[in-house]
């Protein structure tokens, strides 16, 4: 019996010619799409992020004109000075045209003021913005208060979202291991994975509604408050918390909704991993007198570490890209306190039209994921070489 590798090798040697080129044809549609939608745009975005457009403004031109006329004319010039009052103003105009590489189409009368000339120049120059390369956008990010909040929030998401999804997922997987109704429970916990972030956003905005007659969480707190009054522990007056309207609660409210969606995924992966653990290890621990809790933390969790790493990485990647849920529930508000990187990037590019700055934000996101990509590339190469 030949091995697969062997037969392929023989076939290749015998009929080696350029017929392999047709294999590229099979891949051509995929290749073109990936190149034009993923690879080239990635490179373009990286280049774009270093481009600093030099847009001219009227005030800048005016400042330049005043300076040039002051030097050539040897007098003090301000914006209302008439050209006829400036000695050798024609020379100044010529110098100015030279500096900005353009020439006036209209005839320049000496009855114009410097300000008029600046405005005329602007109509010539506004289309002509030059581009410089630099890291200005990256520098700006670290002084831009909206961006600093976004960085902080992404970090808060990173810690809390990851810790809660992974630990709840692992906890549910373990607790459900030998429960008869586990399939039903797993289905219920997994359902939020099936719906969109937008629908989840509506569901949770409804949960968080400030009105104690509408929002479930506030109704619950209201109820507890009433119970508290009965035991003389609270005033009994409760007017509801606007979870999504307060800077100190909004991020945790959003993270809770995200956790609600993703625990199902973590649980499913951990369930499969737990079921695949060899039974004898667990048995041995039990024979040695370990309690179920000890068995879990000292035997099973260490054996699950590779899976835990994979799931954690997945959650971290998710956090970096979190967008829909913020966009739907708060739009980054109140006062930008729930902004995240991806949301900032979207608004900067598509609401404010500042593509260069947005590109720099996208590059930051990309850089965070590059280590994962490199790790994947390595493991794919190993996978391939073992085939």
């Amino acid at each position, binding site marked *: 019996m030949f091995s697969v590798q062997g037969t392929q090798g023989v076939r290749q040697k015998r009929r080696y010619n350029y017929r392999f080129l047709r294999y590229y044809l099979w*891949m051509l*549609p995929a290749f073109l*799409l*990936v190149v034009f939608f*993923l690879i080239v745009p990635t490179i373009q975005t990286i280049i774009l992020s270093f481009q600093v457009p030099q847009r001219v403004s009227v005030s800048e031109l005016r400042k330049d004109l005043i300076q040039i006329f002051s030097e050539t004319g040897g007098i003090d010039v301000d914006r209302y000075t008439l050209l006829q009052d400036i000695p050798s103003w024609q020379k100044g105009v010529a110098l100015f045209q030279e500096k900005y590489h353009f020439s006036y189409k209209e005839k320049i009368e000496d009855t114009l003021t410097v300000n008029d000339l600046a405005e005329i120049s602007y109509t010539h120059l506004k289309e002509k913005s030059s581009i410089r390369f630099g890291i200005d956008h990256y520098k700006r990010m670290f002084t831009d208060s909206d961006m600093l909040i976004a960085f902080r929030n992404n970090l808060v998401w990173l810690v809390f979202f990851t810790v809660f999804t992974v630990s709840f997922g692992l906890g549910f997987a373990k607790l459900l291991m030998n429960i008869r109704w586990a399939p039903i429970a797993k289905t219920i916990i997994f359902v939020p994975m099936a719906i969109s972030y*937008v629908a989840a956003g509506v569901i949770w905005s409804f949960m968080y509604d400030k009105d104690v007659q*509408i929002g479930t969480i506030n109704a619950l707190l209201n109820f507890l408050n009433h119970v508290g009054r009965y035991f003389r522990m609270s005033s009994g007056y409760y007017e509801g918390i606007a979870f999504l309207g307060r800077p100190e609660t909004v991020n945790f409210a959003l993270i809770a909704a995200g956790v609600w969606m993703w625990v199902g995924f973590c649980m499913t992966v951990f369930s499969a991993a737990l079921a695949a653990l060899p039974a004898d290890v667990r048995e041995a621990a039990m024979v040695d007198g370990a309690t179920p809790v000890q068995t879990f933390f000292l035997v099973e969790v260490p054996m699950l570490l590779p899976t835990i790493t994979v799931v954690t990485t997945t959650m971290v990647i998710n956090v970096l*890209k979190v967008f829909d849920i913020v966009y739907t529930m708060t739009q980054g508000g109140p006062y930008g306190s729930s902004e995240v990187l*991806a949301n900032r990037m979207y608004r900067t590019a598509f609401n404010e039209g500042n593509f260069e700055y947005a590109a720099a934000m996208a590059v930051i996101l990309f850089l965070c994921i590059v280590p994962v990509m490199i790790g*994947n590339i390595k493991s794919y190469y190993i996978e391939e070489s073992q085939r």
Partner: protein
Amino acid sequence: MKETRIPLTNKPYHKPSEIFLINAILVVFVVIWILPTIGLLITSFRKPEAIVSSGWWMAFSRVNEFTLENYRAVLLQGGVGRAFVNSLLISIPSTILVIIIAALAAFPLAFFKFPGRTFLFVLFVSLQVIPLQITLIPVMKMMSALGISGTFPAIWMAHTAYGLPLAIYIFRNFFAGIPYAIIESAEVDGATKFQIFSRLVIPMSMPAVASLGIFQFMWVWNDLLVALVFLGGTPEVAPLTVKIASMKGSLESGWHLMSAAAFVSMVIPLILFLSFQKYFVEGLTAGAVKG
């Protein structure tokens, strides 16, 4: 009292009190997990004046509470019906295209040797984790230059391209499990490469087609970002996610309309999930890191 039965399996031995505790904890969490959805579902069938006067948990204690009017209103007047059709028009072609194009590409990658095979495979699949944000601006500019921005073909192409890395990975791995001997014997019998592909490999790969198809469909159906950028929020082409997000942002619609609209968007994912749970979970697990 009967003595507790010691299980014969390798289950860790739990005292009945522990088993009760575990069940109780699980019941609490399962209730927490399902309550938000149930609350909104009940709300979507309540009259607007009932929603603001009492909580959804009171709905069953009152008479004359329920109505289908909310659904009628969003579907016929609110434009959610149009958005539902748009979502289908976006998701179905994007799913079919990605299956065909990825399967074609994965076929030689899985079965034949040729120069650059490993490089191409790694190139395709390593793009799985790329954040879409880094591609959006140039792709949008390209589409405006081609004059197709804001049209369905634009978003079909975008979703297909973004879905390919994962799809090629899933197909390549599934194909690799098909014994090469089967392919070879078909070749000996004179089958062309395309016949092998369409009559042998694809029919044998239906499980992979199912999980990938469901994953891609769900991804596109639930996507907000790509639709926002490439369809520009034009109502005639906006899918459900864009429509609902804009309803939510505009603050015009009350909870009676928001809740009904949200459930309209959830119907198809829930049906797919409940009827193809196995493929669904497989697909979602494989694609968790996508874009």
